[in-house]
């Protein structure tokens, strides 16, 4: 099996699905001839034709609006939003139309759309190329929200998302595109090739939506994380020598509640880590669920380690980013109570 970066794994997922299903199309800004600014669609237009892989005008609302119509026709459109920060103009079509179409039409119409968007910081992108906006979408009934943390999952989850008959918002942590990132910006970057989860089959396979993975088993404390923060939490556990159980949620909605509850009941302690801003972030929902399901097993208050409630700053990126030190401190607080 070839070692793939996350970019290559995503490209492979789209390639496989374009090949398997004549109803799959993908479009977005710079997606066609150029192959996408992060190269995720490189070579796909040449291989599958410009009626299946094509550029879109700079109009995210127009992309989602036309995708809803394509879905109603019977296609399975994949829309690439160049950065998650640019998804806001598309939210009306996503929330008012795509998410509610099946419901409002009594099941007559639906929107089998996958919206892909690079999210998160760590590349000095400033406030318009760094945001983690997942909680806006997990709050919307009718949408599924997915964030992979490695190439194997990225491909398997994206194929599941494309095959899903409901709209899926698929956020790709851009700092993980070309290598795992443990939250130490001062250390040399590591490519995916040395990582076990870069072993990605060439062909079709799926990772089901709604299933979390245990990224590191442990007994001392549960860390709920997704995307880049999975790698940061792994580094924190190793560096602080804490036997943490790190859960990679993979799908935020629908959430794999059983894996979360089993782990917290076992450890009695819970840290929630995400890069997004804190207030009303996805961690707030996780904290509520953990106390609803595990209150009598908790030995200490639940700890949230998150981005601050500020726009993503350009120059203070690493003060904003919840790195391994902050995650380790959070684990200690949860353990010490």
């Amino acid at each position, binding site marked *: 099996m070839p070692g793939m970066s996350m970019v290559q794994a995503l490209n492979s997922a789209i390639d496989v699905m374009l090949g398997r299903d004549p109803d799959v199309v993908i479009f977005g800004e710079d997606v066609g001839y150029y192959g996408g600014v992060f190269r995720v669609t490189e070579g796909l237009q040449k291989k599958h034709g410009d009626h299946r892989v094509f550029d879109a*005008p700079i109009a995210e609302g127009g992309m989602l609006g036309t995708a809803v*119509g394509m879905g109603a026709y019977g296609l399975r459109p994949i829309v690439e939003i160049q950065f998650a920060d640019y998804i806001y103009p598309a939210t009306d079509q996503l929330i008012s139309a795509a998410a509610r179409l099946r419901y409002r039409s009594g099941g007559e119409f639906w929107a089998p759309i996958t919206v892909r968007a690079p999210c998160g910081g760590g590349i000095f992108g400033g406030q318009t190329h760094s945001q983690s906006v997942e909680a806006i979408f997990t709050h919307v009934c009718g949408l599924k929200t997915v964030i992979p943390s490695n190439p194997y999952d990225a491909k398997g989850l994206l194929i599941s998302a494309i095959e899903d008959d409901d709209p899926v918002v698929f956020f790709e942590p851009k700092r993980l595109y070309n290598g795992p990132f443990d939250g130490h910006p001062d250390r040399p970057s590591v490519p995916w090739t040395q990582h076990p989860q870069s072993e990605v089959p060439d062909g079709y396979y799926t990772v089901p939506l709604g299933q979390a993975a245990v990224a590191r088993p442990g007994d001392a404390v549960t860390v709920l994380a997704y995307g880049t923060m999975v790698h940061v939490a792994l580094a924190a556990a190793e560096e602080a020598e804490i036997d943490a159980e790190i859960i990679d949620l993979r799908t935020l909605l629908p959430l794999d509640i059983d894996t979360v509850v089993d782990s917290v009941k076992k450890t009695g302690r819970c840290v929630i880590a995400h890069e997004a801003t804190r207030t009303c972030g996805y961690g707030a929902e996780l904290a509520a669920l953990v106390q609803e399901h595990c209150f009598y097993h908790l030995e200490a208050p639940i700890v949230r380690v998150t981005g601050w409630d500020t726009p993503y700053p350009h120059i203070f990126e690493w003060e904003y980013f919840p790195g391994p030190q902050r995650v380790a401190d959070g684990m200690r607080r949860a353990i010490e109570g």
Partner: protein
Amino acid sequence: MPRFAAGAVERPDIAVPAQQTHPLAYQLIRVLDDEGAAVGAWDPKLSPETLRRGLRAMMLTRAYDDRMFRQQRQGKISFYMKCTGEEAIGVGQAFALAPDDMLFATYRQQGLLIARDWPILDMMCECYSNSHDRLKGRQLPVLYSARAASFFSLAGNLGIQYPQAVGWAMASAIKGDHRIAASWIGEGSTAEPDFHHALTFASVYRAPVILNVVNNQWAISSHQEIAGGEAATFAARAIGFGLASLRVDGNDFLAVYGATQWAAERARANHGATLIEMFTYRAAPHSTSDDPTRYRPENEGRNWPYGDPIERLSRHLIRLGEWSPERHKQLEAELVDYVREVGREAESYGTMQTGPHFSVRTMFEDVFKEMPWHLRRQRQELGV
């Protein structure tokens, strides 16, 4: 504004470059003159039988509207919206399109469904949110969905259907399908970005779609000038996008039919999309929640220079010797009886007030194709 004469506008070949249609954005395509004669190049030359079917569908639409409006006043439904004065648009356009062309309408084109012979019983049950409402009581009255009639689920968010129609048309083109899409938007909602998106994508991808702007002068209490209608016609919005543009007397069944037929042939032959401004007048209030006496002169509708679409088509048929005032009156009475009879059947399946409705359990269905655990638990929490 000048009053445009019937028959004065030239009819270009369907294959002309879009630019050659742009002068038409500042004219008004009319076929029926003041005496009820059909004149000029846009006359679709329909058979008397088709004209009578069109007249009947418009009259049924009006009778249906009248009854449902009163049902709201009696508290049997929560809300209603009439299309009085605009019946020629829904009915005439549905007649000119193929039955499987896909329609992305607004709440004021109920005539599309009626012209496609969709049962008004089904529409009434939706308005009553009763046990036969296929939308399971989830939608406001009038926000129909009828996949079997190629009629897309209506939204209350204005304008969002416009780019969706373009996307459907793009998909049809990608698949080499013969079907085209058509969409409608009110002149007020042309200020929304969705309008701009739809025209951009329709132009860039040469989508086989007809984009209609129903300019009925009023967006609730806002006159069309608040959407920029005094600075340029709504048909002229097509010019900057390189789309074909037509401006049509929307109260003239034959002009509506002729223009739609032209745009449909053009789209089907892959010559691109057409923006059609349907120039009309909203004779009724915006909805049952609206009181137009507070913002517009009471006699404005009566003075509308282009008359009433039903009266005009009726006069035309009478002139042809294919109709009479007596037959008109008789049909009117028959349709009132018919709507009342169907209404009684619909009410027997429940009204909003009295039920029966769908089971509360169904509230949790269709959010997703398969119900996830959190919705199952919420349903249990409600105890249903």
